[in-house]
């Protein structure tokens, strides 16, 4: 789940003003931003009321199924073509991926209404925690299922650092040190003996920008299989 937070409203207003926009279309997201209470129908209507109270005309609004789905977003744009055409700009209440998908789906200037903050676990309704940074080089097999890259504020692979005190983290002082937690769980599972320090991370495995094409991969795989079968025959 992509966790988003409302962007500072003064900044959102300044963005709209900078675009010279007096007529705005608002696009939300039916997936993550709805769950995060930042870009669902409720928040889109709140933004609409706020803009209208400040003298901006809202030409229309929509909360599509998933804001980051290219096909879905193009469909939304077609469904609301008239309202979009009447607008000077589009305010998107979705993560950065959703904002860009919308920017690709319309010729109108698009501006973000949220900040994208992390990939979050849903701890309970409305409570989210970052447990994974999608680094592309998972270490959870060595760290008892606790990610130090994400949950240690310094992202250290081997720790604790010198700031740990009575098992607690130096930076987030109300939290247990991630490395103390990892070592305790490894000990509980009798996996703490004879372990080597984790080697430096391979940051080249973090695809930047990320792109995966499973169709191309499958075609390549099938082509290879056909060649092999041909050789066998």
């Amino acid at each position, binding site marked *: 789940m992509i966790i988003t937070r409302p962007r500072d409203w003064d900044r959102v207003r300044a963005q709209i003003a900078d675009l010279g926009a007096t007529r705005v279309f608002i696009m939300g997201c039916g997936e993550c931003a709805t769950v995060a209470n930042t870009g669902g129908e409720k928040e889109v209507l709140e933004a609409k009321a706020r803009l209208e109270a400040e003298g901006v005309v809202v030409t229309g609004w929509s909360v599509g199924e998933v804001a980051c789905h290219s096909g879905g977003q193009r469909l939304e744009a077609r469904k609301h073509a008239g309202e979009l055409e009447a607008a000077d700009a589009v305010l998107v209440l979705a993560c950065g991926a959703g904002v860009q998908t919308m920017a690709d789906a319309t010729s109108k200037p698009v501006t973000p209404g949220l900040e994208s903050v992390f990939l979050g676990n849903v701890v309970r309704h409305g409570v989210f925690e970052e447990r994974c940074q999608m680094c592309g080089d998972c270490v959870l097999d060595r760290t008892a299922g606790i990610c130090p890259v994400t949950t240690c504020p310094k992202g250290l692979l081997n720790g604790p*650092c010198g700031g740990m005190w009575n098992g607690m983290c*130096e*930076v987030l002082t109300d939290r247990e040190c991630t490395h103390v937690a990892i070592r305790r769980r490894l000990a509980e599972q009798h996996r703490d003996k004879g372990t080597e320090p984790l080697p430096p991370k391979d940051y080249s495995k973090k695809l930047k920008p990320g792109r995966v094409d499973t169709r191309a991969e499958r075609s390549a795989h099938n082509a290879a299989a056909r060649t092999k079968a041909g050789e066998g025959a």
Partner: protein
Amino acid sequence: MSRLRDRLEAGEFVVTGELAPPLGTDLTPMRVAAETLGPVCDAINVTDNQGASLHLSSLAASRVVLDMGVEPIFQQTCRDRNRLALQSDLLAAWTLGLTNLLVVTGDDPRGGDHPEAKGVFDLDSTQLAQVARGFNEGHDMKGRDLKGATDFFIGAAMFPEAEPWDVQRARIEEKIAAGVRFFQTQAIFDIDKLARATEVAHANGAKVIAGILVLRSPRVITFINERLAGLMVPDHIADRIRAAADPGEEAVKLATEQAEQLRDVADGIHVMALGLDTAVPRIVRDAGIRV
């Protein structure tokens, strides 16, 4: 050449001090500190953007100290540089004549004077020690031969009083396996806790230089307890300084007593004077370490 290594390996009790490079280019106060500390120290730590706050680089400042005839301990944190920059600076350090190296994680930028900065932490201190050991063996992180190897005396930080102990013990062993040959500890208030840490270090062939703080005022104690990571001044010590008619004088007496006690447990002392550099020669002399 490292006098610090020679003396530690000869089983002699060593003294190290600490100085912070300036925020700016005026080297005068740093030179004064080096002149004060130099005659009573075997080596002086030159900190690397300490407290995640901007200072002149440890690399340049260490060379300045070396040129004054004082042996520096070049500190390198993992906070501000990626593995390319860390390796590059290690090569630079060696070519500048710096042989003593202290590798540390570094405080988080959020606690420093540039809280907006990105903390790098591409490597951690254990991995950086491994890199330095590799340089000593003549190869870089990728295993390629260096044209000219290093012979760093590799040190790391140790925190004997921060529980849980089994975690600290594992860290000591890991750092030594990574190439660490000496430790400098956080300030010691509990000799028993230091003794168990020293035992582990000695069993694995490393030396321990025990930290002493000159707690020169009640204000300094408050600062340490509230702001310095991984350290708490115990109440009985804090009360003694707070109740003293002359806290500065009491702090020097306390540090001298601690230095005397540490002689039986550690391989040396690391005096963190917290600005009271002029007290260091007295502490060292009165503790009977240097005459």
